[in-house]
């Protein structure tokens, strides 16, 4: 079972991101479970959502406390909450920022993980570019697909089409694709 935790803020499509991730996994014939940390959070408040992916029925209903991957849609959260809680050393991190880890002051922290598994991507910029609004969740999924290798970019695109349609869907797919490519390039760079 692969467990993903997504951090973000109300309005950034955190829950939708988890749902799309589960849809993408479902489309690949796997079992998936997506759910938010329930609350009455309004726009701007910190939000968490989860996604479990497995090859058999997922019965577990507890929140993801030891994630295999983290998707952090808003870097400002780093200063407020312990977003990395429970993440194992083999874990994956995708962080939405247009700064480098060094610029974020995370260089030392990132040393604890495998370099090709801790990737930054300017998801906000990409969403503004392709969709016209701050919806980093979709490019983050694209990046996650690249980083984790858990789901294909095609599945992500299909999940996007499940949630959106028309121009919005195509914009999001373009954003996800670009994020995927950026992440892929950064992974290769980190590997190198």
């Amino acid at each position, binding site marked *: 079972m692969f467990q993903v935790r997504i951090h973000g803020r109300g309005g950034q499509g955190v829950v939708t991101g988890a749902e799309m991730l589960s849809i993408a996994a479902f489309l690949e014939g796997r079992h998936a479970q997506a759910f938010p940390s329930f609350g009455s959070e309004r726009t701007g408040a910190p939000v968490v959502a989860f996604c479990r992916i497995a090859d058999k029925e*997922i019965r577990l209903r507890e929140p993801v406390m030891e994630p295999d991957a983290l998707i952090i849609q808003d870097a400002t959260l780093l200063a407020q909450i312990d977003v990395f809680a429970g993440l194992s050393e083999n874990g994956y991190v995708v962080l939405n920022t247009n700064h480098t880890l060094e610029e974020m002051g995370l260089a030392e922290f990132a040393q604890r993980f495998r370099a090709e598994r801790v990737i930054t991507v300017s998801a906000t910029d990409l969403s503004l570019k392709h969709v016209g609004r701050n919806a980093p969740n979709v490019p983050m999924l694209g990046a996650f697909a690249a980083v984790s290798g858990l789901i294909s970019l095609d599945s992500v695109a299909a999940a996007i089409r499940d949630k959106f349609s028309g121009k919005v869907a195509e914009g999001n797919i373009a954003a996800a694709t670009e994020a995927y490519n950026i992440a892929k390039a950064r992974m290769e760079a980190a590997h190198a």
Partner: protein
Amino acid sequence: MLKQCEGSHAVAEAVALSRPEVICAYPISPQTHIVEGLGEMVKKGDIKDCEYINVESEFAAMSVAIGSSAAGARTYTATASQGLLFMVEAVYNASGLGLPIVMTVANRAIGAPINIWNDHSDSMSQRDCGWIQIFAETNQEAADLHIQAFKLAEELSLPVMVCMDGFILTHAYERVDMPTQEQVDAFLPPYSPRQILDPAAPVSIGAMVGPEAFSEVRYLAHAKQMQALELIPKISAQFKEIFGRDSGGLVRPYMLEDAETVVIALGSVLGTIKDTIDEMRADGISIGVLGINSFRPFPVSAIRRSLSHAKRIIVLEKSLAVGIGGIVATDVRMALDGLDKRIYTVVAGLGGRNITRSSLHRVFRLAMHDQLEALHFLDLEWSIVNKELDRERTTRRSGPIAENILRDLGQAKSNVG
């Protein structure tokens, strides 16, 4: 057809497939997504010949449902929490009148303090209201149970509450095998009411009944629920024939045959418990779980039969009977009357507190060693409780409890920070 969707959506589709004729909608999280989904389907014409009514309160929701059901329409509504309490008078009325309304209760706590998260306090408060109450473990089952609920309700002329954990199920995206319309039509015939407001054959429904007949009426309500004990497994079996999967029934045993320790629980927490049990079984521990699907009627015989080999029973319930302890546990005790078994009550998950495998491991092991107190509150923060109790002992104007605790929690956090 398999699909990955939200629990609420799965329920909405299942209800739609049941060809409802009147749907009463009042928003209260977390059932809102269900009626939103239904509203859209009615408006788009995906549900034919159906009236969707945006009512002004839960009391009105159930009242409209009473009217439409009495007038012969298959009627559905959904509620939760305070909403259920606001409609209570009509809830009792619907069952008293024997109207086969189906209602989703997306289980949630009731306040004060106000709380929007999941537990079973709402539907448990209505355990004696005369409705049949069935609990869903998964979204698949939630969907399936709604289809079964209409059949059950209409055969008995009794209303049915389908209870599903709010947020945990309603807001969870997971795989659901959605039945086809043909399957549902084959399973669920059109509504043929036992009593109806019909100008061609007028009757008076809802007479005032005095002491001379009231006991008989109440007994008959009980007798009907006893009939449901036979009907629920039968409907579940019919369902399996058409849809090819187990859903519903009275109880659901898991790893029970040889289990010395048996956990009893309702709803979605059964999944977490099963994972926990798998882990404990791997450690060679003799433990199993019995899910209760039908809480009302309470399947006394089925439970007694299932627990015949158990030495000890842990009733893990998301509700609290203040002043005594367990609600489900009390019923289980009645079911096991005369049998020599240790019965532990574990109150868990109140107001949405997470029930984690690690906590379950801890409390199950304590029970196995008979080290658990008879009434246990899972993961209770004693320091906070004691602090407040102390404050109340020493200060007359000790202030509001909930706010005090929140302040204490905040201090605890900043201390950590």
